[in-house]
């Protein structure tokens, strides 16, 4: 892979990652948001392959395949199933208006670039240069957790956060060993499945899955 192609591929995949995350903050449809998550997963797999292949790692294809199956097929499918079971397809009325949400998202992306710059330094490696994208994905995931009320969107927010962390880990260290990657993917899958079960139980017990209504326990 020539340096130029590598640069292009890194730019494209990280661009798709950032774009999908912003669209998730913007949109209100849960189904579309889950679809965007699948696209994001595919972009992440592409990034994992690009970086791994460029670094000449023998396991790059395998890692990318695992990421692709997990993040763009299994996890979105699990989320979609929870959404269908609870009958929620749209986000609950939000506390903030959409303009504020988007301005917040833009601000967080800016912060990610400010925070990320000292890490990048004067490293000419395009992978290192793209590091702030991963950080902004982490922050956007947090933002989704903060501004959304439906339990399903909380799960989406968690997965965006996780995608951001995976992005940083691929860009900064071209990934962890295969065993650890596998274990981490399995952990995330289990967490999402467990939370999916909780969402369905919540729906059954109280007729909705609005997490701001969870306030029985307090001091």
């Amino acid at each position, binding site marked *: 892979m020539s340096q130029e192609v590598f640069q292009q591929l890194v730019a494209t995949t990280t661009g798709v990652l950032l774009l999908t995350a912003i669209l998730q903050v913007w949109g209100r449809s849960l189904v579309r948001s889950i679809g965007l998550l699948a696209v994001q997963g595919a972009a992440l797999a592409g990034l994992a392959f690009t970086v791994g292949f460029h*670094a000449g*790692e023998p396991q790059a294809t395998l890692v990318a395949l695992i990421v692709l199956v997990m993040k763009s097929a299994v996890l979105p499918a699990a989320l979609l199933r929870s959404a269908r079971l609870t009958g929620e397809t749209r986000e609950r009325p939000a506390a903030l208006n959409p303009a504020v949400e988007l301005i917040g998202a833009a601000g967080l992306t800016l912060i990610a670039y400010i925070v990320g710059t*000292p*890490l990048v*330094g004067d490293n000419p490696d395009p992978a290192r240069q793209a590091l702030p994208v991963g950080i902004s994905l*982490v922050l956007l995931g*947090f933002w989704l*957790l903060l501004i959304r009320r439906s*339990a399903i969107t*909380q799960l989406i927010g*968690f997965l965006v*956060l*996780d995608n951001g*962390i995976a992005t*940083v*880990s691929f860009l*900064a*260290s*071209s990934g*962890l*060993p295969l*065993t*650890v990657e596998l*274990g*981490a993917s*399995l*952990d995330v899958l*289990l*967490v999402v499945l*467990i*939370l999916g079960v*909780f969402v369905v*139980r*919540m729906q059954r*017990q*109280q007729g909705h899955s609005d*997490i701001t209504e*969870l306030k*029985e*326990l307090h*001091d």
Partner: protein
Amino acid sequence: MAALILLPLTLPLLMAGIGFLFPRAYWTLALPIISAAALLAVGVGLIIAVQASGPVVAVAGWLRVDALSAWMLAVVGAVAVVALWGGAPVRSKSKASVGSFTALLNLFLGAMSLALVADNVGLMWVAIELTTITTAFLVASGEGRNSLEAAWKYVVLGAVGVAIAFLGVALLSAASGSHSETGVSWTSLMAHAATLDPAMTKLAGALAVLGFATKAGLAPMHSWLPDAHSQAPAPVSGLMSGVLLSVAFYAILRIQAVTDAAVGPELMRTLLMTAGLLSLAVTAGLVLTQSDYKRLLAYSSIEHMGLLAIGAAIGGELAMAAVLLHILGHGLIKSTMFVLAGRISDASGTHRIDGVQGLLRVRPDLGAPFLLGTAGLLGFPPFVTFFTEVAIIVAGFTRGLGWQMALACVLLLVVFAGIARQVLAMTLGAGVREQGRPVWWRRLPIGLALLTSAVLGFAAWPLAGTLLAAVGALGGVR
């Protein structure tokens, strides 16, 4: 020796399998107790083995037990025996799905063991995330909306916190620039600490500590803890408060050792001291107005984790040895207290402090150990917590952290007054004697745990070598 490391990982798996095979059998409650006892035995065996011939390595370097891991294994085993044996529900109170319950408890024990013996940083992260996964349904196994709410908050915050720690782990691996097949291990990080990229290591260490501090229940990331620990069934609360917090704290200690060796101790000292004092302040502010005794115990756990963080921030042989001993003392007493709280709530039918009165007269078999255990939590002599708390404070003063220690003492006094007032209101006063004393083998673990924590302070001399070796495993004196 390598087989000794594998036992605490494989035995719980086997026991969990048996539990899943007999989902409705009451006797499956014995299975996690067997795992816990085996864990204790292996821990003690490994302490001796490590002292005799150095760290034990297994599975091509993925697992490694040094003096610190061995000590923590023994602590987890001892506390788990108390929590599971004492907390085993009576037949009439146990649920139909008792087998799956015990299977999850076994998996939980296995996950904690893996976190302690993993030498690979990523593997340890996976194990800590597994502790959240295995306990999710245990926390949710209570009845009604409250336990579901607690479990939801617990899993979301736990998963997000640990995800942040993963960011730290990934950056740490980037800072080391290692591309080896097994990734970064604690051993290689400690050996090559001087060559780590300083800016990257600082960020990685801060993120990892922030993430694991969420699991360890340190303020300001503690908000899930009182909910989860008060809603979970007694043995689960006992395990989570007694040892799961400490396992997360163990991860913080490892990260601290690496960052201290790479970029000096100032960063971690500031972070941990802030989190520690904040945890004490949060507890001090909330114990006074607390109306639920299980939440009161949960807040006391935040206080003790804060104390551990302060001890780790101080550093040095005295403070660190005291921290490690405090983990054992607090674990034993706290698991006992949660077991007792479970029995009190079974007897009185309420979690409310004002719903329980005159416990010493009504149920002396519960009131007396509850009062004694509270004395232990508050650091009364002769309990070991007294000696460790004094050691931490003294070490802080000798290291020139005067105002921080003074502040900690004031906050500890407020916590002391708050908890003492609440527990005295529960135990003192008039009342009519009620029946319901449990059989001797249910009282035995309570007595043993309280006795051990009471004599440990005097009998700690034989442990001195073990503790100092464990401190040495963290890179020695700083």
